[in-house]
């Protein structure tokens, strides 16, 4: 007799008898399978959230969108608007773009947008007027290239007025220059530069020779020797530390740092993560993660100044004038600075504006502090010259990304 039949409660069916041990193995296996599927589902959901964050922060859209359109559409403007399209591509302190334009019959008037001021970082509006000078230089270059003979009158309503310049435009034969061709290519390069590669003397002399009648008394002084680079590098680091320690300067600096993609597309100004000189991976992570605090941003800036900017600078240039408090000379200095930057762009040399020294020097005067950095600058400059704007140069290791710009329509006043 079949044992299976004698045993009470046992299954007679052989298949079901064999199935009993297998059921317990299937249960554990099923449990593991479901756990794996659960983990996979969570990972997929998490990756979806990460992917959406990447889209929302423009990780894959570097330099794209309405905020960057002026870089590609500036030549599509008609008439005198094309000259404004060139002007707005100029650099400005913290990319504040402190300019407004009024177009008349055969003329353009440039005004200072006083609301676009970087506050404690630029207490006497020195950098604001240097930036306006840079925009004016772009406008003049574009005017010549588009068949106009520009006649510039600086500060037609006096130094205290926001009316910066009147540019009368008579028709003439087009004169496109090498500097004009670099207008859409000029970007501040905050990356590391090639270490040990010095700019040739011919290049330094060429940039120093870019002043002309329009730039007045503005001059470029180079600090390319090892000792000079070390001295200025140390001063820049100390000035950065002092800026961070000043609550108002730190806050006014942070206010112009744009970390949100929607904000960039809406405001179309300021310093962005993409233009901060970070590697692609670090920039992507910075965009994916929550926005950095003011303290974290300050610390990152100091680290970059110490470990990247000053460490890899091939040299420093200081644009100087006779009187750095004079708006007219600031405008002239700004025009020279822009000519230098455009020349550098066209000759494979990177340039990065580093104005911590003059920012602290002005702040010392504003607050009645000891003239620590002011005196240092005075010692650096030849007698009779005052430092207006400082920058570093070198050979690039990365191509810089574009920075946002407000549209031509946004800066036209009627």
């Amino acid at each position, binding site marked *: 007799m079949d044992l299976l039949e004698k045993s009470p409660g046992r299954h007679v069916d052989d298949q079901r008898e064999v199935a009993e041990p297998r059921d317990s193995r299937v249960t554990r296996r099923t449990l593991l399978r479901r756990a794996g*599927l659960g983990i*996979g*589902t969570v*990972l*997929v959901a998490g*990756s*979806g959230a*990460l*992917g959406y*964050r*990447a*889209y929302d922060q423009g*990780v*894959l*859209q*570097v330099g*794209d969108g309405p905020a960057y359109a002026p870089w590609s559409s500036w030549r599509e403007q008609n008439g005198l608007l094309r000259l404004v399209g060139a002007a707005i591509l100029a650099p400005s302190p913290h990319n504040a773009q402190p300019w407004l334009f009024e177009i008349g019959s055969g003329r353009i008037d440039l005004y200072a947008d006083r609301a676009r001021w970087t506050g404690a970082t630029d207490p006497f509006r020195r950098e604001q007027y240097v930036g306006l000078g840079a925009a004016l230089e772009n406008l003049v270059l574009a005017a010549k290239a588009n068949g106009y003979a520009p006649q510039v009158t600086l500060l037609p309503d006096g130094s205290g007025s926001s009316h910066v310049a009147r540019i009368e435009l008579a028709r003439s034969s087009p004169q496109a220059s090498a500097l004009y061709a670099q207008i859409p290519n000029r970007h501040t390069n905050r990356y590391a530069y090639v270490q040990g590669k010095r700019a040739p003397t011919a290049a330094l002399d060429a940039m120093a020779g870019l002043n002309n009648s329009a730039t007045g008394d503005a001059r470029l002084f180079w600090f390319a020797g090892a000792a000079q680079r070390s001295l200025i590098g140390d001063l820049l680091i100390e000035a950065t530390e002092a800026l961070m320690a000043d609550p108002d300067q730190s806050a006014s600096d942070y206010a112009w740092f744009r970390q949100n993609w929607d904000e960039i597309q809406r405001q179309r100004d300021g310093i962005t993560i993409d233009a901060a000189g970070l*590697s*692609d*991976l670090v*920039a*992507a*992570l910075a965009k*994916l993660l929550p926005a950095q605090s003011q303290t974290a941003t300050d610390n990152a800036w100091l680290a970059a100044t110490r470990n990247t900017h000053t460490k890899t600078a091939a040299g420093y240039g200081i644009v100087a004038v006779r009187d750095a408090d004079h708006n007219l000379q600031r405008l002239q200095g700004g025009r020279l600075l822009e000519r230098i930057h455009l020349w550098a762009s066209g000759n494979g040399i990177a340039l990065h504006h580093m104005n911590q020294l003059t920012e602290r020097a002005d702040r010392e005067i504003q607050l009645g502090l000891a003239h620590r950095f002011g005196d240092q600058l005075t010692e650096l400059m030849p007698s009779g010259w005052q430092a207006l704007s400082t920058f570093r140069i070198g050979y690039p290791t990365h191509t810089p990304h574009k920075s946002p710009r407000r549209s031509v329509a946004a800066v036209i006043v009627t």
Partner: protein
Amino acid sequence: MPRSPCVVPGHPHPRAFQPKVGLFAPGAICFTTAGPLWYLPGAILVGSGVAALTDLRSETSTLRATIDRNWTSILTAVLALFYVFLGATALGLAGVLGILGGLAVLAVLAFRTRLAPALGLALLAVATVPFALLVWWSFAVPLIGILLIATGWTALRSSAQHTGKRSTGVVARSD
């Protein structure tokens, strides 16, 4: 308790329509937004709502088993749609690779029962790797790419196992 006048004998309970409405409503909203990127989830939701209109009450257990058996394929398809989405936001060649790569993964899934697992895995890699390599620094795309290959491989193996079991069953029964 009196029967609700909404309940008709022989027809699905009104509550059965809640998930279907729940698919249509957000799907329709997607098409009212300004951004074209919303059209993709909108189409998925509306399409799912149409499919759900079929009275599945009698086939719930079958449906559940089908979803359970194909869950890795569903996850892979979702990841492929993420790829398409990110490709749509990327610039230049990266965008093309992302969109085509995501669509290619969906094609591999659609034909997974006819593909040898090794071939399917190779196709998954060809579809996924270029986009991930080109924008390796984006962090999100490489991570999704890795998950795509992992879940896709699991889906291919699972499909092959189910196909093999059905074949074995036929042979055993014929014995």
